[in-house]
């Protein structure tokens, strides 16, 4: 899993050398203003198919805001978001989800009163049979099989009958990823998936992300530099809503501007 195995993506800063893969996600001049505050400032980037892209930057840099735009929670003030060749700017969250973009949340966002299986099953069901009113939901075995496969993948296969609220923090974070995966995404946006995790939980999560990354594109926001350096093919650095650097982990580590704004704080 060496980062240089993948070709360099087209960079907004002009060194578009070897942009072989077409981007699955592209933003052009994405800008979000909250009153006087510019949370995202003219963000232009392209994420190629199959890449693990990390977004880093100090707190308040605009990373979650970027996710909120891509997943339809926020409508950008200006700019465009193109996914799989299609303009998805301003589409509502359910439409974005149906386009095969999924996300997990910085603050755990699950169905606490439902079982672990139901959390994932309802997500899988959003692709099939969700308008059936007359048959029992357990009769749709394909949905349940999909949910069980996802639970196995995220390591919760033996917890399916537990209430989600009763899981440990680390397990809830994995369930969070499981819900997103169950919607069969092409692009998975992970917002600080290891937040609040112990060292061993973090290690398990990195392993999990590496496994699921084999068939989809991942956009990850993460504060743990070890996680970022170990996982990402490419890193985008945000600062006050602006892209200040983009490159391989090695390039980012060596970039004096990045050290100035981020690594030393």
């Amino acid at each position, binding site marked *: 899993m060496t980062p240089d195995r993948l070709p360099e993506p087209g960079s907004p800063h002009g060194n578009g050398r070897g942009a072989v893969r077409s981007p699955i996600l592209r933003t052009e001049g994405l800008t979000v203003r909250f009153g006087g505050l510019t949370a995202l400032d003219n963000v232009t980037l392209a994420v190629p198919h199959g890449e693990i892209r990390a977004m880093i930057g100090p707190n308040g840099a605009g990373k979650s805001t970027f996710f909120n735009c891509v997943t339809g929670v926020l409508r950008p003030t200006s700019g465009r978001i193109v996914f799989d060749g299609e303009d998805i700017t301003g589409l509502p969250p*359910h439409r974005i989800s*149906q386009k095969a973009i999924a996300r997990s949340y910085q603050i755990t966002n699950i*169905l606490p009163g439902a079982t672990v299986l139901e959390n994932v099953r309802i997500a899988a*069901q959003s692709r099939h049979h*969700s308008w*059936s*009113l*007359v048959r029992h939901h357990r009769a749709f075995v394909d949905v349940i099989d999909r949910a069980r496969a996802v639970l196995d993948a995220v390591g919760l296969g033996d917890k399916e009958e537990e209430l989600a609220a009763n899981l440990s923090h680390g397990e809830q974070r994995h369930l969070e990823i499981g819900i997103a995966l169950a*919607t069969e995404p092409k692009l998975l946006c992970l917002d600080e998936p290891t937040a609040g995790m112990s060292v061993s939980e973090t290690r398990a999560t990195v392993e999990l992300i590496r496994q699921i990354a084999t068939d989809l594109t991942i956009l990850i926001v993460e504060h743990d530099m070890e996680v970022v350096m170990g996982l990402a093919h490419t890193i985008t650095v945000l600062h006050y809503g602006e892209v200040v650097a983009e490159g391989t982990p090695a390039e980012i580590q060596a970039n004096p501007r990045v050290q100035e704004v981020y690594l030393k704080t």
Partner: protein
Amino acid sequence: MTRSAAGYWIGFAVVLALLVVAPLVLPEFWRRFVTEILIWGLLAMSLDLLIGYTGMVSFGHSAFFGLGMYGAAAALLTVRPPNLWLAILYGLVGAGAVAVFVAYFSTRLRDIYFAITTLVFSQIFYVIIFTWTEVTGGENGLGFSQPAFAIPGVVSARFTPVTLHWFVLAVVTVSYLGLRRITQSPFGMVLQSIRENEPRTRAIGYHVERYKIVAVMLSGLFAGLAGVLYALQNKFAAPDFVFFLVSGEVVVFNVMGGMGTLVGPVAGAAFFFLLRELFSRFFTEYYLIPVGIIFTLMVIFVPQGLLGFLRRRLNQ
């Protein structure tokens, strides 16, 4: 079948058997009491689909109930001879039409705004019914005679109190099983997901407003059906039943009996009417004071309602 599923169906059969036998053994007053509880219970169940399963509190169910009543009245007063099935059809169409209207406008709003909108709509219908005397009979409502129970070529018999009870029981039982199946269907699971976490439900790809609209429409149809049954039982339609106090009572049935169980609200209705019966003997029209105190105590000490402890088993 698992053991707890067997337990559920045994419980179901026992309660159903008791309700079948009830009119044969109970004195007239209590027979009527049980029939009416079934009808109010159906209204309460219909609301449970919204309150208990979708997490939307409606204070407008009197409108659906009332439109069911007036729809039945329209059929029974205009079509000769009076036809039971047409009464049901008209009642459902009336309640359904109102439900589409209310659903379209109110489901854009959430929480207290949804509740207030449903309340305002039901009061609008109340005012229309109360003042449009030429059509609705205004304050006095409409009286009519009971249709016969007729299936062309099979049977035609006048209702007796006992057979009407059985008819009501059959409609309420089938409605219960229908509502239960809806709550367990993929659609019903989406409603429960909305109740648990609406933004997350959107984020995994559900067009939440559409599900809410259909939930309100279904709820309105079952509430309208309860209104039809009430009209059949009492042979009148009156504006009092469209008034928002009725909606409030139905919310109370849900809270007392246990939201999100379907049968809980029926038990809540029974409990409420028993309390009313008991206390109105001692306190006459001030019965609401002790009932209110008991309700408050229940909300504090039994917040999940009378049958709340069975919630998981009732929904399996």
